[in-house]
């Protein structure tokens, strides 16, 4: 009996031959010209359906049949090994499933970048040898010094530097454990008053920030130590490395997902997410600073003081690292203002 009409291509010439395909006793049979072709059903390779396209059967000898008669093709129930593709086709063609997929895709993509990438970055950061991380930090610092020309050599006197180094050491000795760090002095230039933690425990503090903190000489180092305590919080949790890894992984996830690079729109949310978890890191660094300052007998109000000075100075200018991703400085310094002054003396 005739099952459907199809275009037959023999694989040698490009001309289409219209044939009547019939099914007989587990064999597919059709006649073109004088010739009769018979194929065992099990030897056929029916292609997975894509949308409403013509259905295709690949023949074992390199020929192919193409038919518009989708219903007849489906009735054939060819022994396709690809159950997977059939399920896929059903998924793609039912409005309900498409909507479910849409919601799931948004949730999965969001969850991946929001939770998956940070966890992965943390794991990789843990697995990264300290030596490698220090090397990375040195590269970054060298790039900031030379390639980008952010910094110039510090103009602080040796004495001033030594007093800061000594105070930081004293602060560190009062901590149950202090992460390994290296303090670098630089002139900030266009970056201005700033302090930052690079991978590998390298902390950079600019002359401008030190000058800004130098209001009342007796307490001046308190404000500097307060800022460095915040940076040490970043060092302790290896935030710089994690942040670098997160940026790289988010980019990789997006490239892997879309497969092509024309997804500007897909990139934007990732940037926004990035801001979000760096805020969480800032909170961790703040908590670390608050607790450690109290342990070191330094009034936490020093941190509030330097932040307010920075905020005042930053109006209209660049934001230093300690203020970044915190639109509301006031809410942030409140715990430091409210904190009890330590009973001990630094």
């Amino acid at each position: 009996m005739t099952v459907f009409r199809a275009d037959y291509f023999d694989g040698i010439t490009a001309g289409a031959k219209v044939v009547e395909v019939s099914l007989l006793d587990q064999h597919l049979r059709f006649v073109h010209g004088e010739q009769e072709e018979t194929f065992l059903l099990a030897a056929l390779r029916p292609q997975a359906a894509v949308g409403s396209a013509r259905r295709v059967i690949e023949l074992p000898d390199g020929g192919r049949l193409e038919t518009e008669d989708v219903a007849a093709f489906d009735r054939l129930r060819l022994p396709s090994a690809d159950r997977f593709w059939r399920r896929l086709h059903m998924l793609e063609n039912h409005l309900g499933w498409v909507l479910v997929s849409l919601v799931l895709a948004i949730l999965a993509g969001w969850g991946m970048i929001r939770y998956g990438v940070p966890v992965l970055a943390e794991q990789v950061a843990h697995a990264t040898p300290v030596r490698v991380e220090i090397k990375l930090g040195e590269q970054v610092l060298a790039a900031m010094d030379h390639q980008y020309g952010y910094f110039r050599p510090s103009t602080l006197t040796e004495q001033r530097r030594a007093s800061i180094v000594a105070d930081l050491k004293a602060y560190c000795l009062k901590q149950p454990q202090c992460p390994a760090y290296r303090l670098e002095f630089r002139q900030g230039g266009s970056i201005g008053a700033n302090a930052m933690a690079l991978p590998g425990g390298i902390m950079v503090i600019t002359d401008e920030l030190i000058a800004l903190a130098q209001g009342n000489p007796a307490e001046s180092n308190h404000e500097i130590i307060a800022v460095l305590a915040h940076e040490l919080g970043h060092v302790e949790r290896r935030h710089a490395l994690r942040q670098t890894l997160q940026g790289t992984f988010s980019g990789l996830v997006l490239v892997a997902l879309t497969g092509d690079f024309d997804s500007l729109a897909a990139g934007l949310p990732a940037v926004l997410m990035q801001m979000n978890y760096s805020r969480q890191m800032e909170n961790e660094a703040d908590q670390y600073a608050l607790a450690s300052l109290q342990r070191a007998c330094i009034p936490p109000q020093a941190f509030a003081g330097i932040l307010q000075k920075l905020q005042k100075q930053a109006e209209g200018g660049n934001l230093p690292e300690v203020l970044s991703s915190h639109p509301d400085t006031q809410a942030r310094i409140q715990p430091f203002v409210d904190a009890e002054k330590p009973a001990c003396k630094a």
Partner: protein
Amino acid sequence: MNGENQTPVVFTGKTSEYFGIWIVNLLLSILTLGIYSAWAKVRRKKYFYQHTFIDGVAFDYHASPIAILKGRAIAFALFVLYSVSSNISPAFSGILIIAFIIFLPWIIVRSLVFNARNSSHRGLRFDFTGKAWQAAKLYLFMPLLIIVTFGLIYPFISQRRNQFLMQGHRFGLSQMRAEFKVSGFYVAYLQAFLLSIALIGIGGVATILISQDGLKGLTTNNPSAIVPFILVYVVMLTISSAFLRSRLVNMIWNGTSIDHIGFKSTLRARSLVWLYVSNLLAIVFSLGLLTPWAHVRTVKYHADNMALLGEVDFDHFVGEKKAEIKSTGEEIGEMFDVDLAFG
């Protein structure tokens, strides 16, 4: 032009249908951490190929997802190796870059071969016969002359590259022929250059207007404040590249033939600019959800503006012997698929 001798290219894809394929691709790619993206690519290409008809018969795409996945895994591994090493050992990453440059012509040719051999029409496969040394000349050595000539040689290089791309393709046993006028490329690039200059002027004014409140946002370190700037810049870039593309694609197809069949491409710069800019804005403001719509209408526009000239008697085209088809089918286990575009 004799209407009887023109055969249109017809694209029958629909956004409503493709949206399902696109979203399922996206979902499964996310859930499998990107592994499914190789299957997704096959699915997407198959959809567009199988809905593009010439004289009532569509194209087909045959690539094996596993081959694509292998290629992507290698590319991914190399990328990770490179990004890690560039931070730790610049010397090693330098070696990687040099190795990549040396292999680039080979990769270009392999990816063209991969794509061509996995594409078919009417039961005949395409093929690409260009050689790696030709690619090396066009993609490595000639670009060195760009610096010496202050870029003046670029249209010439573009003409040679496109001739290489088109001439290298075969349908069955029939080789494509391509003959483009160098002067045409120079005119197109000059016009695009002048257009860019004009747009940069307009863009400058637009940036100043936006910056009234935009700059304030920038200084408070709000990264989203930079979005309008990027958007203006991207729109300008889109306009000039759409203009250039319309001119080049028309020239390329109109100068290409295969056996007794010629091609006629009638892209219009204005329509293409509108198509690209509206696509871009739709994608950005729908947060990517209109991507399938943009994709479908772009392909439809290109198909609508393409026709075959001459008697389309496909019986003239022949392929290899049936037995040999099998063997070429095996050897395409190669996996480089880099997408090359005109330009």
